[in-house]
């Protein structure tokens, strides 16, 4: 009993809060994917690789050309937005009427391309931005400034995207487009334009994630592998296209990883998170926030 009570110490609290901060990172990553995958129902398996390219862009601008972080960031966001639009234009657009599995495959090919492009162009070295932000300390507990930033960005981003999606005409059109593409023209909607806007927006959000992730992680051609699968799981756990759900799911996942890691092994924390995901799918097949049928 005492041993059991022992775990309720300051470290538990720290783990909980760190879980929340990790949740911020994951939520930020899931945000753009949720737009693409959840709302317009297009599969970008290579989403995390777009983030990787964005991280390289930041690295080179800041480390190599000495551009200030805050000037480099908008450029990176723009760059990844353009990449997103290009990805749509070159790869997805020809496959819009094909089954989703073909999109998965094609963007999987793009994943290879981006990884090996990074290998060829930037080499296999791990690279680090070398910016080290201060630490926030509350008594015995310390927190990462960089993560706090991601957290805030994710929160603001989520609210902004949510408002955009529900309040504006373009946002409504984005939600409508996966449901009936053919009649969009009857509404006066240029479907091509909506797809490009959405893809660019998804790309921009990936770029935003890149700007914040580069503060915390080394960049290398395979950094996407650390984030890719879990980002997809979060989107689905939250309910496809449900931004609030996705946001919450990111935190649930992060807490499981964080607390699972604290109570048992880090490795089993991930097993737990995956298993939790599967079980949740059985209990709430349409996402965390969905009402039961």
């Amino acid at each position: 009993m005492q041993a059991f009570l022992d775990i309720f110490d300051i470290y538990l609290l720290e783990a909980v809060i760190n879980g929340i901060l990790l949740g911020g990172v994951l939520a930020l990553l899931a945000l753009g994917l949720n737009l693409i995958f959840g709302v317009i129902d297009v599969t970008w398996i290579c989403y995390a690789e777009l983030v990787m390219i964005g991280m390289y862009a930041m690295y080179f601008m800041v480390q190599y050309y000495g551009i200030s972080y805050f000037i480099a960031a908008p450029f990176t966001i723009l760059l990844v937005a353009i990449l997103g639009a290009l990805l749509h234009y070159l790869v997805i657009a020809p496959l819009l009427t094909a089954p989703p599995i073909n999109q998965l495959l094609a963007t999987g090919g793009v994943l290879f391309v981006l990884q090996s492009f990074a290998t060829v162009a930037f080499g296999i070295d791990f690279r680090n931005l070398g910016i080290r932000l201060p630490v926030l300390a509350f008594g015995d507990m310390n927190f990462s400034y960089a993560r706090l930033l991601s957290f805030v960005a994710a929160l603001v981003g989520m609210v902004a995207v949510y408002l955009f999606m529900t309040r504006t005409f373009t946002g409504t059109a984005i939600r409508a487009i996966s449901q009936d593409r053919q009649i969009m023209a009857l509404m006066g909607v240029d479907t091509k334009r909506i797809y490009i806007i959405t893809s660019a927006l998804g790309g921009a959000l990936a770029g935003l994630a890149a700007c914040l992730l580069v503060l915390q992680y080394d960049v290398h051609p395979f950094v996407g592998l650390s984030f890719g699968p879990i980002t997809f799981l979060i989107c689905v756990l939250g309910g496809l296209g449900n931004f609030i759900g996705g946001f919450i799911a990111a935190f649930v996942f992060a807490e499981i990883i964080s607390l699972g890691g604290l109570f048992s092994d880090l490795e089993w924390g991930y097993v737990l998170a995956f298993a939790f995901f599967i079980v949740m799918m059985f209990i709430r097949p349409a996402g965390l926030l969905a009402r039961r049928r």
Partner: protein
Amino acid sequence: MLELRSVDAGYGSFQALFDVNLDVKAGEAVGVIGPNGAGKTTLMRVISGLIRPLRGSIRMERVDVVATPAHRIVSLGIAHVPENRRLFPRLSVDDNLKMGAFMKEARGKYAERLDIVFELFPRLKERRHQMAGTMSGGEQQMCAIGRALMSNPKLLLLDEPSAGLAPVVVQQVFQLVKRIRASGLTVLIVEQNVQQVLRVVDRAYLIEAGTIRSSGTSAEMLASDTVKEAYLGV
């Protein structure tokens, strides 16, 4: 207002319309009748730009519709209520209506148009937050017409608006067509329900196997032997 000249249209290698000529004058209500697969829906699609004619010209108030990109045709004042309604099933009624006012020109008058539509269909106002896909057939039909009216059109294309509706509602729909007409809108309506439709339109075209077989005022059509035999079950 609308004029079609020698229009051919089809799907891939299959031709569905042959040399169609058709006119709709401002303020008129015009019906199109004909058997299944005659090409009525194709005709509507070709007007609203969902498919492009193989040949021929289409003009809306002297603007060349064929040369206008599909998504700009709405702003010429043409609103199309497609066959089977085609609502966005997982959007709320509100959002479906919002999509109807997507066009730049219509966005400014969104609130105003919404009031008009809700006045026409109080049922929609009750259900404004329901997902369109879970509504009953009649409710969906109201929503589809409402959505089309949101763009403040001059010409309303209705493709079988009475299909699958309860008799009272069918009557309501035709009443509605009358009211819409009375409010100054021009209507082109495709119907299988020949008897009823001929009561609300001024003129009608009979289309068979992709060609216009005959046309005339409703009275003429009602009296015509071909129409009587084939469509009125007399």
